[in-house]
C-alpha cells in the first residue's frame, strides 16, 4: 500500500482523524512477512516479522492494519512461525489489539461519523476477500457499514465467495489459472454493469485492477473504507 496505493492509506488516515483518533504511523513497520510465509519460507518470514513484533510490543494502543490478509497474518498466523517463547508471549499480549480498518471502525469506534452520501447512484461489486471473510470474519461488519451509505448499491458475484486468484506468489507461479479466476470476477462485473469493485484487501484489488487494465475495462477499484469518503 505504501508503494502502489498511498492515496488509499491517506483516505484511511483522514477517516481516523475525523473520528478524533490520534494517528501514529509507524515508519519502521515494513511488512508482516506473509509473502514468504505463504511460499514456505518460514525462516525468511520470521526475520521480517521479528522487528515488527518488537516494534508493536512497544505500544499499548490499538493497532490498525489496512487489508485483511496482512491483518490475518499478524493476528492469527504468527505462532506458526515457531516464535521463540519470549517473542510469542509478547505477541499474545497485543494480538487482540490488532484490527483491520473496518473491524476497528465498526466494532471499536462504533461507527463514529455519518456515512458519506453519493450524489448519483454508484453500483459496486463487493469482493468478499478470503482472509477477511473466512479467517478474520469481519466482512459482514464491513458490509453493514457500506450498506448505510445512501445511493451506494453493493452487488455480489454468484460464485459462493470464490477467491479472486491472487494468492501471493500463486499469481506468478500459475498465472493462467490466476487470471482465469480474475476474469470470472471481472466478467461478472461487466455483465452486471457495475462502476467498480471494492474489497477489504488491497492485494486482491491490485491483481484485479492490473488484469482489468490489461483488458481495458472501464472499472474502478476501491479499498472498502475509501467508499466512506469517496465522492
Amino acid at each position: 500500500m505504501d508503494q502502489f496505493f498511498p492515496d488509499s492509506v491517506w483516505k484511511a488516515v483522514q477517516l481516523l482523524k475525523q473520528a478524533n483518533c490520534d494517528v501514529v504511523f509507524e515508519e519502521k513497520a515494513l511488512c508482516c512477512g506473509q509473502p514468504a510465509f505463504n511460499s514456505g519460507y518460514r525462516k525468511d518470514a520470521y526475520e521480517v516479522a521479528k522487528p515488527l513484533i518488537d516494534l508493536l510490543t512497544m505500544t499499548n494502543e490499538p493497532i490498525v492494519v489496512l487489508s485483511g490478509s496482512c491483518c490475518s497474518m499478524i493476528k492469527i498466523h504468527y505462532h506458526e512461525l515457531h516464535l521463540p517463547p519470549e517473542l510469542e508471549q509478547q505477541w499474545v499480549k497485543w494480538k487482540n489489539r490488532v484490527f483491520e480498518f473496518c473491524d476497528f471502525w465498526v466494532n471499536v469506534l462504533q461507527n463514529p461519523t455519518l456515512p458519506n452520501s453519493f450524489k448519483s447512484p454508484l453500483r459496486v461489486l463487493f469482493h468478499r476477500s478470503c482472509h477477511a471473510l473466512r479467517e478474520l470474519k469481519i466482512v459482514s461488519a464491513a458490509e453493514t457499514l457500506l450498506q448505510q451509505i445512501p445511493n451506494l448499491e453493493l452487488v455480489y458475484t454468484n460464485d459462493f465467495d470464490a477467491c479472486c486468484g491472487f494468492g501471493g506468489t500463486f499469481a506468478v507461479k500459475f498465472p493462467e489459472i490466476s487470471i482465469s479466476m480474475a476474469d470470472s470476477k471481472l466478467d461478472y462485473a461487466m455483465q452486471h454493469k457495475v462502476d467498480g469493485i471494492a474489497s477489504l484487501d488491497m492485494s486482491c484489488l491490485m491483481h484485479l485492477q492490473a488484469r482489468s487494465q490489461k483488458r481495458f475495462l472501464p472499472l474502478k477499484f476501491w479499498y472498502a473504507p475509501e467508499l466512506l469518503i469517496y465522492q
Partner: protein
Amino acid sequence: MNANFYPNRFSKVAKEALDNADLQNALTKAMHHSQMVRNQAVQDFSDWEEMRNAAYRIRKYTLDHLDELLLQFEENCVRNGVQVHYAWDAQSACQTIHLILSSKSAKRIVKSKSMTTEEIHLNHFLESNGYEVVETDLGEYIVQLRNEPPSHITGPAIHLNRKQIADLFHQKLQLPYTEDPEELTKQARTILRQRFLTADAGISGVNFACADSGKIVIIENEGNVRLTTSLPNIHIALCGIEKILAKEQYLPLFLRMLARSATGQRINVYTNFLSRPRQPNELDGPKEIHVILLDNNRSKMLKDIELRESLLCIRCGACLNVCPIYRRAGGHAYGYSYMGPIGAVITPQLIGLQNAHLLPYASTLCTACGDVCPVKVPLPQQLLTLRQRIAEQASLRPWLEKVGFKIWKWMFSNNAFYVLLTYLLGFASKFGMMKLFKPWSTYRAPLRRAPLTFRQQWKKRTYHER
C-alpha cells in the same frame, strides 16, 4: 516410480485444461451445482458446526487408537467368517488380490468405484495378468472406456459433457447414437447387467469399517455396489487402514454428513452393509468375503504429527467442489488418484515430496476447503506445512525464488534497504521496466509505483505540520 503418476506436470496439464472449452464448461456447471446443493443440504442442521466437531473427534479417536481398532476389527471379521489380509504397499495388495482370485480360477471381475483401487493401479495390474475387469459405476465405466483415470473423487467423469459420452458409446460400443442421458444409462446398464451375471468375483472399496462389529459399509447411488457385493461368489474389499470407525453407532452421523457434503443428498440411495459371507440357509451373497487392509504409507503419515490429520478424510469431495483451482485445472492435472486440496495434501505424503512438489503450491490458500470439510481436516495449514518442507529442500524450488526471498527479507527487515527498494521500484516504474516481470505482466498491466510513496508523503506532511 510408476509412469502413471505425473503430479509434477501440474502446470502443463492445467494449462491444457484451461484451453479446453468443453472441460471448462462441464466443470464450471458441475462444481457450481455441487456447491449449491451442498450448501442447501447443510442448512438442515442448525448445529452443523457441532456435528463437524463431533465427526472430527470420532475420526481423531480412530487415528489415535488405530493399532487397537485394527485388531478389534480383524477379530470381529474373523468371527463373522470374513477373511482379513494386511497389505504393506500397493504391490502386496495387488499380489494378494491376484492370489485370492487365481486360487479360485476367477477371471471375470466386476468392480465398483474405489479411489483406493485407483491408488494401487489395480485395474492395470489385473489386466496385465489376464483378468477381465469392468467398472460398474456409470462414471467410472465411462472413464474406463476412455482409458483415462477418474477426474473427481465422487464423480469420475465430471469433466465430460453429454455429447462426449454419446460419441464414446457410439464409437466404442457400436451402439446407436443418442444424447439422451436416460437412454445412455440404459445402454450401459444392459451391458453391465450381463457382466454382473457372469462375473466370478467382485471388488469394491470401503467407506467405513466398523471395529466393534466387523461390518463394512459402502455407500452409492446406482445399485452397482449392491450387485458387485452380492452376485459373484467371491468379494474382495480394499480398505485403507484409516477407514476404521470405532463404533457402528457413529454411522448415522457420518452417513448424514458424507451424503450432504458429497452430493447434497439427505441420504445416498443405497447403503450397503457387508457383515458375513453367505450362510447355508441363505440364497444369495458371496461365499467368500476378503478384506484387504492397505497401509501404503499411511502408517508413515500417522507418525507425522503435523500432517497426520489428513488421514481424517472420508473422501466426500467437498473440498474439490469449492476449490477454484480444481475447477479450472481439472482432476487429471493432479496426476494421481486424489485431486483438489485433499489431493494436494495427501499425494506428496503417499508418493514422496519430490514426486508431487508442485501440488501444495496449486492453491491460493483461500481457505474455502478448510471451511467446507465435514471432518475438519486443516487443509490450508497442511498446505503451508508442506510448502515449508518443500522450500527447505534445495532442489525442489527454483533458485531464483530462494534468492528472491533472501533479497525480499533484507529489503523488508531493514529500513535502509527498504529505502533502496523504494528508489529501485520508482526507477523501474518510470522507465517501464516493471513490464519485464513477465509472469505478472504477460496477462496483467505492469504495476507502477506511486510518484511519492505514503512514507515519503507522510514525512513531508509531518515536517510541514511542525
